[in-house]
């Protein structure tokens, strides 16, 4: 193993450890706990069907708000924490190419962020399945892949924000509330600027056999699953490339 690869591997594990023992995990667990409680309360009142779960839980609560908010902390914090703590200088003076630092920091967030985001989704599905219709057992299988792709796209976007802007967390929160929560529900093509539009389109495409469909087809107007998959991958690759480019060229005067 070359020295640079060894250093990069250590960067990933070191960053992963730091994220694992951060307050972000507690915040994410809190958000998931509230979501689980709401689903539990709902499951006590009614028999949950895939259609209801798809509409209410994933499209109204989890996908537009809890999911991106949970990922936001990890995406913006991967490099943003070092920047805020003033310790980025220690990394920038190591013999690692800046692009590899950028990539390594993103890779380090994936295991934790995906475990929490997709694990959280699995937990919601499991709680709903306890008193739900038999088809509920298949819902997680339908929702998992769109959410995995969406999670990586969000992380890539938030990671980009952290190197492009000083107060990336605030910008990311505004983005989630305005673009994902608000614009993501308005009629017309404007909602296509939100990442969740594409994960929702994928969900509707693969979930149609379970009755998971947009509440009003004419208002939501989903695109095909293949197109949505390709778009999410493009968003991920685009922000990854843009972030790498910015980080490799940007000077951080506010670091130690």
């Amino acid at each position, binding site marked *: 193993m070359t020295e*640079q690869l*060894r*250093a990069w591997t250590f960067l990933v594990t070191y960053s992963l450890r730091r994220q694992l023992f951060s307050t972000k995990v507690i915040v994410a667990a809190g958000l998931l706990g509230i979501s689980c409680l709401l689903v539990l309360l709902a499951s006590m009142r009614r028999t949950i069907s895939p259609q209801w779960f798809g509409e209410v839980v994933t499209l109204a609560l989890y996908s537009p708000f809890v999911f991106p908010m949970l990922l936001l902390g990890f995406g913006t914090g991967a490099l943003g924490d070092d920047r805020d703590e003033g310790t980025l*200088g*220690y990394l*920038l003076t190591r*013999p*690692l190419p800046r692009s590899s630092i950028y990539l390594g920091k993103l890779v380090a967030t994936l295991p934790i962020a995906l475990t929490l985001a997709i694990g959280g989704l699995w937990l919601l599905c499991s709680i709903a399945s306890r008193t739900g219709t038999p088809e509920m057992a298949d819902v997680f299988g339908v929702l998992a892949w769109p959410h995995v792709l969406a999670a990586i796209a969000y992380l890539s976007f938030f990671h980009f924000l952290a190197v492009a802007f000083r107060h990336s967390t605030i910008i990311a929160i505004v983005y989630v509330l305005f673009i994902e929560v608000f614009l993501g529900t308005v009629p017309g093509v404007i909602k296509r600027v939100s990442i969740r539009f594409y994960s929702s389109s994928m969900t509707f495409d693969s979930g149609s056999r379970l009755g998971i469909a947009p509440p009003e087809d004419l208002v939501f107007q989903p695109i095909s699953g293949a197109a949505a998959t390709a778009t999410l991958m493009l968003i991920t690759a685009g922000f990854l490339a843009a972030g790498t480019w910015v980080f490799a060229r940007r000077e951080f*005067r506010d670091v130690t």
Partner: protein
Amino acid sequence: MNAAVVVHGASKWYGAVIGVNEVSLEIEPGLTGLLGPNGAGKTTLMKLITGQLRPSIGEVRVHGQPVWRRALARKRLGYSPDGDRFHEELTGFQFVYSMARLCGLERRDARQRTERTLARVGMADRSWKRLRECSKGMRQRIKLAQALVHAPDVLVLDEPLSGVDPPGRLELMDLFRELKEESRTVLISSHILEEVEAVTDRVILMAHGRVIASGTVARIRDLMDDYPLTVRIVTDRARELAAELIAHERVVSVRVDEGNGVEPGRVVLRVRGAEHFFRELPSLVTSRGLDVRSVEPLDASAAAIFDYLVGGRREVDS
């Protein structure tokens, strides 16, 4: 010429503000002091040398490689920043070990080097303390250790003695001398002249983003001899002393305050070649039977000397 660090015509602008202005210098193995008042551009120059900043114009090379573009150029570089920032949740050992691993060292090698380096900076017995619980002096030593742990041959140390107690300073100065004996290239910044002078062979003076003088400590001292130092002498016979001093070849001006019978008199004079003057003063005073209570330089700080030197750029051959 075997300069490890070459800065060629480098300028750095922060918008309309100039951080470093047309700096060209070569730093050879040994200890080099980078001296200047706060805001002189020392830290900007150090960040250029360590590849954290890109020069607006000009170039900075470490061992012949452009340090901003080539990550491998930083392999032989150690940097101790001025800022007191750490991953606070870690112990000193964990932090230095992590920095060693981030330089590509293998686990066992990194562990051994971390232990050795922490012992070298006097932190062997305190390395298991969490950084948030460490004193300023201990944190300085940890910063130094993380810069040294991968055995770089170029070390850039930004205010490494700041916050260290006097015995600790002596220990670290000994360490710097050891680094010199190991033929490493060490650049140490400070705004305190005496601090740098005690350990370095060569000094670079900066002010307003420019290198205003550079050379050996002895030559810089000669240059500083031209600077008229203000000295206050407290005596009961101020007028008589002033009359003697005004005739002295090194005295530029004299002002007398005769006192009021309760307070003793004072003579405030400006003198060139202060070192020689202070050597000659005792014999002058005793030969006239004058009673001197105290002699106090009023503006011997580095800042005052810089103000004088900034008047014109002075190149000193080393």
